[in-house]
């Protein structure tokens, strides 16, 4: 039952129904009134008037004379007739006998209906044709039927409207999640009113989180300003530690890779991920290269027989500033940067990210491979574009570098 303020569409609909019902009732009531009046008058004319013209034996009562004034006198008596009923929608009626004993007289009014009576007279069957006209008591007639129509419209609006197929689908779904009928009905209505993307989001949420509070899920889905990425949403919802609101935030976030200083944590697409120390640092290094645009982020693997000493020193300095493992730093300082080290760390990162995000989502944050034409060796870079990489200055510790804009 709707107790809230009606919307403009609902008010218009109610007004249209009221108008339609009013028309129907006005026609119906008038038809009832005039038909019953007509049949009443028909009996009265048959029982009262005709015996005053034609005797029982079939003879005219005045048979030796032609009384020209008889028709006029009869019609004078029939001019103003009254009817009564519970609702006197008819104010008055007029009858008129059009033909008597060969004499004709046209009515002064415009007739609505006709009454035809027959008598068997000595001259054969004689027809008596009466014209009937009834005039309505306009205020009472229109007022009463409009009121009745308004009442009916009110009653109709109180009826519980049937659910659309979409509403029914959600109603059943909510009930299967343990909601009572009284709660599920209005909620199903609200859901069906949401735009399709919000509904899809909601469906995904409810499917992934059977224990979630349906009402809260609806509220959050309805409040979304942006459509969440379904793959990300699914991934976020699969994590037990993620609240519904947070999962939605993650799903709605843009592609980005951020490095949190001092926590070995990256935030990928809003989702925080803690990584082991060394792979984290190599990840950061690749990200720096991509972010600064050095050779567009590409780094050719050093040849197996000749590790890169300079780059090794660069990385070891970064590690030292950020508290990396001593062993890794020593390896780099003593032997330089080996292709194998890079491969191992990249592989580790792939494992970590893939297990956390799945293949599809991780891909954007892992590495691209190319064969370098000149050297004949493979080169790698971070797949994430520079604009999506966010490395705050604090995460770099004491690395001396030209001021570069970090996003």
């Amino acid at each position, binding site marked *: 039952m709707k107790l809230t303020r009606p919307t403009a569409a609902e008010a218009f609909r109610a007004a249209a129904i009221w108008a339609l019902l009013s028309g129907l009732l006005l026609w119906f009531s008038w038809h009832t009134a005039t038909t019953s009046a007509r049949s009443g008058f028909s009996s009265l004319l048959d029982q009262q008037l005709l015996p005053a013209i034609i005797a029982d034996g079939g003879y005219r009562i005045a048979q030796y004379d032609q009384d020209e004034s008889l028709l006029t006198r009869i019609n004078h008596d029939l001019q103003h007739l009254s009817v009564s009923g519970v609702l006197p929608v008819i104010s008055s009626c007029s009858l008129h006998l059009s033909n008597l004993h060969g004499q004709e007289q046209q009515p002064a009014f415009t007739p609505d209906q006709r009454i035809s009576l027959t008598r068997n007279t*000595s001259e054969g069957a004689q027809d008596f044709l009466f014209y009937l006209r009834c005039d309505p008591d306009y205020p009472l007639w229109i007022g009463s039927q409009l009121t*009745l129509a308004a009442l009916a419209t009110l009653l109709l609006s109180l009826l519980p409207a049937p659910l659309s197929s979409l509403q029914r689908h959600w109603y059943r779904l909510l009930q299967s999640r343990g909601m009572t009928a009284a709660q599920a009905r209005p909620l199903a209505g609200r859901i069906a009113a949401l735009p399709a993307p919000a509904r899809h989001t909601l469906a995904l949420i409810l499917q992934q989180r059977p224990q979630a509070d349906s009402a809260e899920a609806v509220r959050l889905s309805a409040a979304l300003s942006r459509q969440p990425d379904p793959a990300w949403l699914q991934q976020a919802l699969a994590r037990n530690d993620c609240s519904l609101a947070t999962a939605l935030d993650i799903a709605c976030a843009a592609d980005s890779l951020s490095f949190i200083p001092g926590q070995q944590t990256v935030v990928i697409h809003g989702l925080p991920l803690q990584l082991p120390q060394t792979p984290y640092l190599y990840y950061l290094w690749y990200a720096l290269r991509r972010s600064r645009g050095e050779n567009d982020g590409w780094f050719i693997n050093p040849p197996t027989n000749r590790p890169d000493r300079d780059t090794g020193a660069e990385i070891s300095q970064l590690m030292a500033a950020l508290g990396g493992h001593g062993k890794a730093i020593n390896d780099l300082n003593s032997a330089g940067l080996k292709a194998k080290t890079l491969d191992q760390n990249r592989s580790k990162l792939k494992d970590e990210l893939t297990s956390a995000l799945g293949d599809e989502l991780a891909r954007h944050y892992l590495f691209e491979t190319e064969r370098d034409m000149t050297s004949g060796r493979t080169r790698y870079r971070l797949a994430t574009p520079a604009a999506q990489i966010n490395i705050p200055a604090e995460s770099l510790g004491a690395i001396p570098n030209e001021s570069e804009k970090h996003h």
Partner: protein
Amino acid sequence: MNLTSELRSLLPYSLMVAAVLAAVLTVSYLSTRQSSRPLQLSDYYSYRCGAEPSLPDREFRILTVARTEARALADSLCSNPAFSAVYPTVSIRWQRRDYLTLDHIQEQSFELFFNRQHVVSGIAPNYTLFYSLFHDSPHYTLEWISDDDQPQLSDDYFRHRTLGLLSDPKSQSYHIMPLDTLNAAGIQLPESRIIYFSDTYSLYQAFSSGRVDVIPVPRVSSSAQIPFRAAYRLLISDDMSPGSWYLSQRVSAAVHCDLQNVLNRYGEKVFDHETDQTDCR
């Protein structure tokens, strides 16, 4: 989408809507049904003049058989000072002869009525207890008339012509007498040769239009009632009595004379007959 499940959910709602509509229509129907009040009809076969009737024995009630001159009869009594001193109100009613009943006679419902002698004796053999024969109407002549050729009382003549009569089997002039004379002459007419009419006006119209060839008619020298002159006639009877006036014993003798005069003049007009009765005063 499953159609039957759609319909199943719509069905209860549709039924409820239908129930509301049915209830509303029923209320409208029951409340707007009208019943008509009995008609207020005047008395089309009577006329009254004079003062408003106050006391019953101050109203002079007349019963006659035709409307012709009825108003004039009442008016002439109303305008008569001597008469209206005794009876300030006069009413006259015209009905068929069989309107008169034994009750009317025994209760003296009318001060004056007109009817045939045999009818009155037949209704109330002891009518003289209440009424006396007061004024006889002039006897008149009844004739067959035709515009085509001379009517003859023969099988041959009537067999080839259409006869017009009144359908009232009690009508002397227009039914009984004509048929009796034909029967007495041995003329048997097939029913198809006779057309019956409800009133004399229709009978005369039919004769004028040529729908019937021969009709019985009282002889008149001139009369507005029979607006034509027929070319040929054949006598049916020269001693037809239209009837007599009967006066109630209660009526005071003081008005007898005025009444006689008025009835004389009435008779002259209606029967187109010069009366040989002199005025009594």
